[in-house]
């Protein structure tokens, strides 16, 4: 019954999103019928809510006639992880995608921002077409409401890795919201191409949406890294895995877009924004294709379901339409010139470098696919590639960022800027010399420390300056990025670990931190057996408390999962994992790692998101002043414009 309701909801959603596209097309062409167009979005949203609700209901009620529930539900799984099972497998997670997409579309449709603008209507047409595609994708290629061939007594439960950490309740929804939110700036970019002309009133709402999606995406990526660190047990937070790369790629181009759209040169801002907003959404689609169609595992597996070909076809369509619109665009408008050294050119340099990082990461991610298509066999690109090719460009981004944030908006304080640049550079160099002589970090890490000091000192030097007051949210985000850089550089240089078999009573010491095995407990509960290694942590005879890494064995899936125990302290984490336990419980193999500065990464990531959120809050009140300021900045350019 729930399955029927769910499938009907999908059909209703598909129909409503077709109406959504057509009715908004009418609004775009004739300006009339806005009420009906808005209503179609609400119908699509209600359909998506019903579909998600139906699957949630089936999961919570353990309705194993639904195949998705049979594969991902289990009577003994706690309610929280039963609810999050909605997004623990592909088909269900696409429902969540639909829900967010319909919600975003409805918010844009009913939002009060310039309701009569043709840009908004065209943006709605674009999001409508995207909605049609995704409803069709779920209905035809990944319908989670398909019935089980044989109804089992109990289901398999969600993937064991997805029920170890509460973050799994928020990480996928936030990541998806960040991805889907990028559809609005993309819609506005298409609208700008369709409408043409000099009207760049679309930039402000597009940027606000991009900023919101960016903040959410930042938190989503951060939680993903945290989950990886706290659950997967290998001690790392980023493996340059295709799934991780897929989330980073749109973040990079969106970051570039958020910078160029601050440019005072509106024609440049508009051009770059069109390109970058489109690229960001295309990268969202590419990432979805890479990670959800099985294409990364093998080129040949992606045709097993119609999902891969459908997504690939849609990507080709989007790229084709955008390219055609760009080519057709009125080229009569020549863009404003930028000075070699100015705030505006800083935005562009930064954007170019961020695009370069994205290009490097994208190449590494799709290289195995291309290699396999060319007959080279299945391959994978390991993390060494990214560390060698992407990290240097990221450091260059930090350098440009550190310089550009000092550039004042007016001429008067230019001399002061050079002075600040000198102080920040000195701080960076001193840091490099000091850190380099006290310890032997890797070269790239050492550079990262220096650049972080450079960026942070620069922020401190301009924080109270009047000309930088409006830049404070950006400075906060930059500070967060510097913290992340410190955390990554330090943890990748100074992490020490040891893997040793311990008898009860034995201890292992790493970097002054000792762990003594005091007991091994075995306990069966629900659908799993849990083995816990109890460890006493200490430093120089002082107790640091206990830690209890575990091994969970799931008979239904015949899988063992090792979950680490992390004790965070200001100076770093004590990270323990139990990898093996003797049958008699007298011995356990323990991995003890001391990971300095890892908490700094989470802190820095949160600060980056905070910077974005502050910018979002500030924009609402500051739009008017900003527009006035923009006019003042633009004023001297006007006579030149008229010479043309």
């Amino acid at each position: 019954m729930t399955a029927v309701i769910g499938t009907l909801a999908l059909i209703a959603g598909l129909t409503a999103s077709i109406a959504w596209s057509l009715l908004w097309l009418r609004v775009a062409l004739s300006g009339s019928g806005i009420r009906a167009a808005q209503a179609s979005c609400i119908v699509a949203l209600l359909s998506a809510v019903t579909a998600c609700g139906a699957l949630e209901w089936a999961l919570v009620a353990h309705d194993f006639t639904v195949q998705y529930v049979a594969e991902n539900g289990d009577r003994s799984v706690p309610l929280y992880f039963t609810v999050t099972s909605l997004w623990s497998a592909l088909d269900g997670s696409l429902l969540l995608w639909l829900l967010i997409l319909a919600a975003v579309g409805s918010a844009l449709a009913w939002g009060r921002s310039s309701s009569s603008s043709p840009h908004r209507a065209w943006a709605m047409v674009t999001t409508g077409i995207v909605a049609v595609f995704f409803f069709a994708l779920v209905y035809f290629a990944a319908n989670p409401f398909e019935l089980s061939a044989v109804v089992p007594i109990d289901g398999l439960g969600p993937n064991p890795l997805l029920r170890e950490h509460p973050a799994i309740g928020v990480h996928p929804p936030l990541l998806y919201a960040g991805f889907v939110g990028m559809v609005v700036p993309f819609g506005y970019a298409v609208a700008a191409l369709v409408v043409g002309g000099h009207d760049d009133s679309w930039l402000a709402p597009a940027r606000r949406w991009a900023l919101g999606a960016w903040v959410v995406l930042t938190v989503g990526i951060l939680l993903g890294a945290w989950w990886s660190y706290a659950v997967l047990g290998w001690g790392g937070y980023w493996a340059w895995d295709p799934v991780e790369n897929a989330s980073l790629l749109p973040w990079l181009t969106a970051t570039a877009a958020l910078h160029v759209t601050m440019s005072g040169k509106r024609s440049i801002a508009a051009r770059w924004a069109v390109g970058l907003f489109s690229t960001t959404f295309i990268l969202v689609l590419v990432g979805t294709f890479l990670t959800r169609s099985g294409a990364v595992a093998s080129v040949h597996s992606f045709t097993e379901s119609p999902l891969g070909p459908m997504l690939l076809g849609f990507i080709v369509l989007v790229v084709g339409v955008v390219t055609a619109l760009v080519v057709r665009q009125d080229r009569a408008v020549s863009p404003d010139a930028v000075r070699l050294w100015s705030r505006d050119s800083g935005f562009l340099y930064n954007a170019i470098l961020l695009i370069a990082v994205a290009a490097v990461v994208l190449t590494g991610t799709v290289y195995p696919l291309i290699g396999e298509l060319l007959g080279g066999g299945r391959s994978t690109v390991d993390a060494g590639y990214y560390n060698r090719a992407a990290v240097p460009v990221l450091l260059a981004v930090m350098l440009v960022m550190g310089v550009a944030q000092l550039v004042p908006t007016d001429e008067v304080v230019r001399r002061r800027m050079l002075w600040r640049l000198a102080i920040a550079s000195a701080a960076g160099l001193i840091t490099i010399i000091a850190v380099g002589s006290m310890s032997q970090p890797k070269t790239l890490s050492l550079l990262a420390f220096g650049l972080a000091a450079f960026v942070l000192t620069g922020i401190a030097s301009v924080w109270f300056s009047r000309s930088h007051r409006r830049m404070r949210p950006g400075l906060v985000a930059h500070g967060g990025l510097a913290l992340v850089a410190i955390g990554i550089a330090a943890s990748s240089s100074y992490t020490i670990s040891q893997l040793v078999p311990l008898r009860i009573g034995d201890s292992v010491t790493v970097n002054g931190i000792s762990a003594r095995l005091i007991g091994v407990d075995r306990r069966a509960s629900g659908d799993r057996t849990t083995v816990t290694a109890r460890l006493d942590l200490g430093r120089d005879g002082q107790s640091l408390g206990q830690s209890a890494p575990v091994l969970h064995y799931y008979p239904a899936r015949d899988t063992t999962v090792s979950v680490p125990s992390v004790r965070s302290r200001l100076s770093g984490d004590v990270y323990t994992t139990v990898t093996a336990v003797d049958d008699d419980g007298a011995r356990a193999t323990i991995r003890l790692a001391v990971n300095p500065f890892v908490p700094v990464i989470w802190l820095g990531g949160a600060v980056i998101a905070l910077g974005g959120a502050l910018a979002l809050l500030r924009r609402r009140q500051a739009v008017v002043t900003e527009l006035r300021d923009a006019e003042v900045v633009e004023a001297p350019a006007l006579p030149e414009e008229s010479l043309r």
Partner: protein
Amino acid sequence: MNRARPSGPVLALIVIVGIGVVLLVTAGLQNTVVYYRTPTEVKQSTSSVGQTVRLGGRVQPGSLHDDGGSTEFELSDGRSAVLVQASEALPDTFREGQDAVVEGVLEPNGTFRARTVAVKHSNEYRAPRQDIR
């Protein structure tokens, strides 16, 4: 300066960064691309001897031997099996009958010396259908 060459420095930077990216990518891809091989491919050709490759397959039941410091097991793809040696004790997450991926070097005598051993998790978070009873 202000108007003469529209976005000249930007254009120059795009070119420079573009060349830089090409150089970084080609240099970065040296020795970081690891090919997957199946046990049958390893058995049939000697071309991967001495190279770092990834070998995927099912851990043959009954083949896993753990003598304190080092471990031996066979990886099979149903047709052929390759003997894998790892120099460390393997975690409990690793068991016979499961899929595993090892990375390492194939020695001339046909044994595979593994540097890393990983239990293969399904890419799609979906369990094999025959497991449902």
